Each structure stands twice: as structure tokens, then as C-alpha cells.
């Protein structure tokens, strides 16, 4: 199983150069059953990464390009009168697939955003008063441009909270960049990527995550982290319980990916920025547009072994 994970990382790496950590975190997020928010400037490889992820995980994939005139029905599907059969029939929208790439989610109106977000949280959608289950597993990888860019509707905190992780891909380092430049001509196409994981593998992974345990001392550390965000005047609001659960779940998944059955503080520290950055807002940043990396503060200020 560990090989399969490594293969997946390698395969995705063929498409996204020099971003192993981000790839692993993205996989970690999907293994943990959470939704992923990729935030970066245009052209950083967000879409490529998500497509590659879908490919290696062998998931049914559909892409929705969010624009300012997108309507909820465009995502969820519509009921149309079928003249041949003389009745209304439901035409499922792109949301009915295992993995959805919601490209540039912050370019659409809040109304449409919430249509997707309901699906993310509940795993079901309601169309015309009828509730329809979404296929399982159901993942959303959303990409967005930094909120300071023109033509964006920033996601409210309540909706950001629903993403397990927010990743920034960042510029590639010079070596990766060189490699990228060299390979422009004979670049591996998406279709050439091998599927590394099956849905059965996913079940096994989930089971393994369930077997990872966190000791009291580790939970103490996690609680100290959470308490740090809630106390004092550094943050306008602290981590929600959902955020806390996300943190420990991600840490467990990370430990599982490292083939361990116990969580180490390193695991927590590794996933912490991705899990908490989008959930926290510094007091100084009242609009929430800066998106600073608060987690660094947590990592350096909170003691690991004791108060």
C-alpha cells in the first residue's frame, strides 16, 4: 500500500515539478476525505495538480469553470420536460461525479458558491425539492486566485471552514523551473499518467487511518495549539471544533502515509499550515484579505512537550 502511495506521488510529480510536499499534502487531504482548496496566482499549476490527482486516484472527474454568471443549476443539474416520454426528467449536473474541480471558485457569486458548498458538506444536493445522493467518494478540489485579485467574491469564513486544507503551490525552485522549461516540448500528457489507486485501495487507506492512534501527550499538544488560537488577542477567532478535528484527522492521515500507526508532533506540524491558515484571521487583518501565514506563529510559540 505504501508503494502505491509513493507511486501516486511520483506520477503526480511527473506533471508538477518540484512540489512533492504540496502533492503529498494534497493526497493527504483527499485520503482524509476532505476537500481541498488550492489558492495561488494564475498559471501556478493549480489545475494541472488537481487533474493529475484525479487521474492517479482513478476518480471520475468533472471540471466546472466558475464564472460570474454561473447559476446553481449549471452545477447541480436541471429538470427538463422530456417530450418523448411526456414527463419531467432530471439531468444531473457536473456535481454528480467523484471528483470535482471547481476552478476559480471565488469568481462566481455567493449563491452559486453555496450550491456547491452544500454538496461538499452534506454529500447530497437538493434539486426541485428532491434530495439526491452524490456518488461516493466525493471530493472537491477548488482553486481560487488570491482574494486581492480583481473580479473575486471572497469565500466567507463559514465556507472556508469546509475545506480540510488550503494549499499554496508557490513558485517552483530554480531546478524544477529549469526542468520545466526543458520539457515543454515533450511534456507528458495527462492521459499518459497511470492510475495508482483504486476505490478499494481507498477503503483500505481509510481503515488504516482509523488504526492510527494519538497518545494523550500528543492530544495535549493539539489542545495547546487550539487553546493558543482561542486565547489572547492574536486572532479574531480561534479554531472551531471542526478545525480541531480536521487537524488531528490530517495528522493521522499524514502518519499513515508515513507508514506509522501513531501520530508524532511532526505530523501535526506538517499539516498545521495547510489545515489552519485559512481558518484563522489575525486581529490586525480585519477584512481577511491578507491571508497571512498564521500557522508559523503557532508552530514557534506553542511548546510541544509541556505548557
Amino acid at each position: 500500500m505504501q508503494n502505491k502511495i509513493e507511486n501516486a506521488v511520483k506520477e503526480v510529480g511527473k506533471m508538477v515539478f518540484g512540489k512533492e510536499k504540496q502533492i503529498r499534502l494534497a493526497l493527504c487531504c483527499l485520503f482524509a476525505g476532505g476537500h481541498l482548496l488550492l489558492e495561488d496566482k494564475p498559471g501556478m499549476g493549480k489545475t494541472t495538480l488537481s487533474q493529475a490527482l484525479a487521474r492517479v486516484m482513478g476518480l471520475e472527474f468533472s471540471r466546472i469553470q466558475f464564472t460570474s454568471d454561473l447559476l446553481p443549476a449549471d452545477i447541480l443539474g436541471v429538470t427538463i420536460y422530456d417530450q418523448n416520454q411526456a414527463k419531467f426528467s432530471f439531468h444531473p449536473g457536473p456535481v454528480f461525479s467523484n471528483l470535482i474541480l471547481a476552478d476559480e471558485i471565488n469568481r462566481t457569486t455567493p449563491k452559486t458558491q453555496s450550491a456547491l458548498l452544500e454538496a461538499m458538506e452534506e454529500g447530497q444536493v437538493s434539486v426541485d425539492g428532491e434530495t439526491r445522493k452524490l456518488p461516493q467518494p466525493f471530493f472537491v478540489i477548488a482553486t481560487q486566485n488570491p482574494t486581492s485579485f480583481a473580479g473575486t467574491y471572497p469565500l466567507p469564513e463559514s465556507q472556508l471552514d469546509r475545506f480540510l486544507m488550503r494549499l499554496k503551490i508557490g513558485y517552483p525552485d530554480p531546478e524544477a523551473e529549469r526542468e520545466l522549461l526543458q520539457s515543454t516540448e515533450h511534456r507528458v500528457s495527462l492521459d499518459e499518467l497511470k492510475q495508482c489507486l483504486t476505490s478499494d485501495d481507498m477503503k483500505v487507506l481509510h481503515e488504516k487511518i482509523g488504526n492510527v492512534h494519538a497518545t494523550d501527550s500528543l492530544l495535549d499538544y493539539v489542545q495547546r495549539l487550539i487553546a493558543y488560537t482561542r486565547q489572547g488577542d492574536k486572532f479574531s477567532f480561534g479554531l472551531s471544533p471542526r478545525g480541531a478535528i480536521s487537524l488531528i484527522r490530517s495528522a493521522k492521515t499524514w502518519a499513515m502515509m508515513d507508514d506509522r500507526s501513531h501520530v508524532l508532533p511532526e505530523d501535526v506540524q506538517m499539516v498545521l499550515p495547510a489545515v489552519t491558515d485559512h481558518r484563522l484571521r489575525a486581529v490586525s487583518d480585519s477584512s481577511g484579505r491578507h491571508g497571512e501565514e498564521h500557522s508559523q506563529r503557532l508552530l514557534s510559540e506553542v511548546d510541544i512537550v509541556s505548557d
Partner: protein
Amino acid sequence: MNIFNLTKGKPKEFTRSSYLVPRTSLAWILCSLVAVILPHVVRMPIWLVLVCALCIIGRVLIFQGRMSYPGPIVKTILVVLILWLMVAQYGRDVFATESTVAILIVAISLKLLEMHKKSDVIMVIYLCYFTVIAEFIWSQSIPIAVYILFCILLISAALMSLSQTEEYQNPFRTLKLSALILLQSIPLMLALFILFPRIAPLWSVPLQSSTARTGLSDSMSPGDIGNLIGSDELAFRVKFNGENPRPAELYWRAITLDSFNGREWSRGFNIEPQFLGAGARDDRAWFQDIEFQGDILDYNIIMEPTDNNWVYSLKIPQVLDERMIMRRDFQVDSIRNISQRFSYDMRSYMNNRLDASLNQRELRQWRRIPSGSNEQSFEFAVNLREESGSDQAYIQNVLAYFRSENFFYTLQPALLGANPVDEFLFNTREGFCEHYASSFTFLMRAVGIPARVVTGYQGGEYNPYDDTLAVRQYDAHAWSEVWLQDQGWVRVDPTAAVAPDRIERGSQFVFQLEDVFLQDAGLSLLRFRNSLFLNDLRYRLEMIDYSWNRFVLNYDQGMQFAFFSSLFKEVTREKIIVTALGFIFFSIAIMVFFVLRKPSRKELHPATDLYLGYCDGLAKQGFVRARGETPFAYFDRLRNLKPAWSKQMCDITDKYIELVYKRPGQLNHPDDVKEFKNKIHQFHMLLY
């Protein structure tokens, strides 16, 4: 529907039984009530016990819903009936302690039937606390103290369970909590015991049954002392300062008997008024006349209550205690009747001359014998005196007569009639010490030698563990004192002539084979004197009992002052009170501190504690662990800085991660932690 009708039309039952005693609470209350009543049962009439039992059963039925609370009419009838029965039972003694406590108990039991409100329950619990302490009026022994502590544990559990929420109703948890609280209160209890000002009781408690006590009485007729031999009850315990005297010297004087009516000796006359103030006694001429000589013997006596006022002493004591006076006949009396255990210090001189200069007129009182009785003995005495020539020789001859003729020293002498001295000397010739003392004294008086009988105890048993001497009722004894020219009063023990073993080895040795010995003692450990183990056990138990009596029950103002004088130069009552209050405030302050204190840092994993020590050690070397540095990252950083320590640090870090993060829960083996401790210890050795 009118909404106001809802409140108006509330059914009556709901308002009445609005408070339901929690299940655990009721169980504890009933348990503690039974425990509280139990020791009092022996003093309660049987019907009262039945009433209490019925009340408890009734309360259970009410709880189960099989019975409803009794109405006001039933309750009134019950109370009146019980009060009437009480008056009928106790009569005029209805206000004595036994009956008041019985009334209290039955009142608590009846209260059970009307526990409607929480305050009722709390009242029952507080009354239980009160009643359980009442037991101390009758007994203050260690077993009772332990039992009462147990009762308090139960009552506290009941009180606590009353304020516990539903999910904490495990009764044993409550008991544990109660025990914990009691344990915590021990320091405060000790402090209050030691520091609290000791005040003499403001009122005395009248006990209805001044139970007939076993012991000496102020008169002596044949058979009286023999009756005591069946009892193993403790008379008193002595602790000598310095060396213990020989058994043959241990004549514990209690009562001097001067008057003889032919059969019975009694304290017939008093030469001086009995109660003289303590200050007045030194002025008396006869008191000045006592010549104290010989070795000084200091000792402390704790005597069991006698309900009389004589106290025990060796030879002629110098009375040092303000609470005692010495009478003209050298009997020492306490000013108050001794109705509680009484501890006092005595100083005796092993040699002294008493009343050496008495004139004949004064001596006349100790020569009186009733005329017309014991004539045969009188004649015998006069003849023997003529043969002897001197008083001393006469005494020796009488003792020789006891020794040479066939006299028996026995517990079961034949009964004597109207002229007991005659019958004893010439017919039965078997008797106990009082027979010998009585007839010897008679023979002395018959020829005009002043003589009298002294009763008390002889001997005793040394406890090898605390070196105290226990004197029991079976050590009771009687002997004579005769007045000789120039020598004053001299002790003569005719029993010693007949049965020297009695004096040298004690009555238990002489009589252990006789049926009468210890016949009243029941299953006493004293019966098993021949079993080494049981005898040893008995000695140990007696030692504990002695310490309890001496240091706990007899802890009084004197001992308190002695305790404080080891703290201060000058002890005053104010200082004691200030110290006591200071201590109480101090303990309250500690409690307040613990209650108000912020919750301390969470209890750490033992390994984490050790690991922090390891980090401290490294920090002193200049390698401070950053707050957010994981153990492995820390090691990784130091590995490059200090390669020499790399191996140990690697070991420690690995072990720490294994102990703290690898194993679920706290399932660490203590040995692992110990091993980890050793590793860190070794690393510290390396550092310095």
C-alpha cells in the same frame, strides 16, 4: 383552555412529594442511622428499638411508593404515644442522659417518616452526627472511638451523596470521597485536639445508672475481698519514674479501716474533718510529724473510676496534687468523687515514721473492740501476750501461730457466723487476706496494741512493653498496721506469713487453679496466661490502651501547658488561644488557597517530566530547545553541534518518542520509565 388553570389546579400530591431523596443518599442515611443507633441499643428499652426499626422500614416503603407519608393526625398520635411510653418507662429519670439520648434517637427515627424537603434530610444527618458523639458519654475506649469514626464516615457519605448529581451516584465512590475528606481533616483534628483550650465542663451529665462498680468498698467483712478475685477489671495502672520497686513492696494503700463491730471493719470515725482546703493541711501538727525518709519514688497513676474519693498510693505519700488531701489516718482522698478515669502524680518515701509521738489518749481509738463478741480469741490473745513479754514478741508469736497451725489461704473459705474471729482462728482456719488481717488486728487490739486494717491492692503485673504496672481487682488485698512505741505505725501483713507466694508472685499465681479465680471475667485474655502468644498479645493491647488513656483521654490543661511550655518561655492562656486561632486561620487559608488557585499545569506524562529535565540540562549548556521544536528536530539540530553526545541523545529521544507518542493511553510499564530515567541520569553525568 385557560393557561392559568394549569398552575391553579396542580394536584396536591405533587407539591408534597416534590423532593425525592436520591436513592444512594437514602441508603446511606439509613445505613448510618442504624450504625448510630447500634451502640445505644444496649441502653434502650426493647420496644424503643422496635419503633426505630419500624420507622426505618416505613421509610423504605415510602421510598418504594408502597406507603405514603403519614398524615398529621397519625403523626401526632405516634408522638404522644411514644412520649407517654417514655415517661412510663423511665419515670422520674426521664431527664437523665440515657433517656434523653433515647428520646433523641426515636425522634430522628420518626423524622424519617416526614422527610419531605431537603432541609429535613439534612437535619436528620446533622442529628446523626450529634447522636453518635453521645456514645462517648459512656465509653471512650479505642474500639468505640474507631467505631464512631466509622459512623462519621457513613454519615459524611450520606451528606455528600445528597448533593451529588445523578451520574455520580455510585455509592462506593461517595464512600471513598467521604473517607478522603475525613483523612484530610485529620491534621486539623489533631491541631484542635492539641491546641483548643481545655475548659472544665460547665455542667455535669447525670447518668441514670451509676452502675455498680467492682472494687473496694469503705467497709470490710469476711468474704468481701475474696469476691473481687473473680474479676479481672483494671483497678489502676502505674508508671514509675526510675526503677520499678520489688513486688513485695507494692502495697497500694486505699482505705484505712479503724472501727470494728465484731464482724465488719469500717471507717467508723474521722479524727479530722474530711475535707480541708489544700492550703490548710500543712499547718496541722500531725502532718508536720511525719518523718519522710528513704528512697524517693515518683510515679503516675491512672485509676479507673470508682465513684468514691479515695486514691491509691504507696506507703505514705507526699501529696503534691492540689486535687487531693491526706486524712488524719493517712488515707489520701481526692476532693471530687472519681467518676471518670483519673490521672495523678505521686511521690512516696519508702521509709517513714508516722505518729511516733502520739499520746495514749489519742491512741485509744485504735484499741477499741466490741465487748461480748469473739471472747475466745480475746482470751487467747491475753494469754499469748503474757507468754510473749513484749509487744514485738507478741506480734511475732501471732504470726508464728498463723504459720505453724494448719491455716489455709484459700478463695473459698467456709462461711463464718456471729463471732467470725473465733470461728476462723479455732475452727475453720481457712480464709482469704481479709480473714487474716481482720483477726490479726483484733488480736492486737485485744491486748491493747493500737492497730487497724488497711485495704488496697498488693502487687500488680508489669507490662514488658511499656513498663507499666497494671493492678487489677484480683490484686485486692487487706493487711494490718500496728502502732509501736518509737516506731509509729508499722505495716504487718499476716497473709505473708501464711502464703508468702501471694506477696511475692501475685494472686494470679496462687489462685490460677481455683475455679473462683476470674469467674466473672468471661473470655478474658488473662485466662490464657500460659499461651506465650496470647499473653504477648495481651501485653501489647494493654500498652496501647495505656497510651490512649494517658495521652488522649487524660490530655488536659496541664498537659496542654506542658506542651506549650516546650514552645514558649512563658505560657499563658492568651498565648494558647492565639496559637489555636492562628493555626485555624492558617489551615483555612491553605484550604482557600487550594480552592482558589488556578488549575495547575496538567499532570504530565512521567516521561515528559524527565524529558524536560533532559532539556534543562542541555539548556544549561547553551542548547535551548525552541518551544515549537519537536524532540526529533531538537536532536537533529544538536547532533550536528555536539556529535560526542549524539548516541545518548539519540537513545533518549527515541525512547521518549516511544514512551510518549507510540503507545496508546498511559499503558507504559513503570520499568520503561525507570529505564528512561536511568538514561537521562547517565546523560546528566556525561554533561557535568
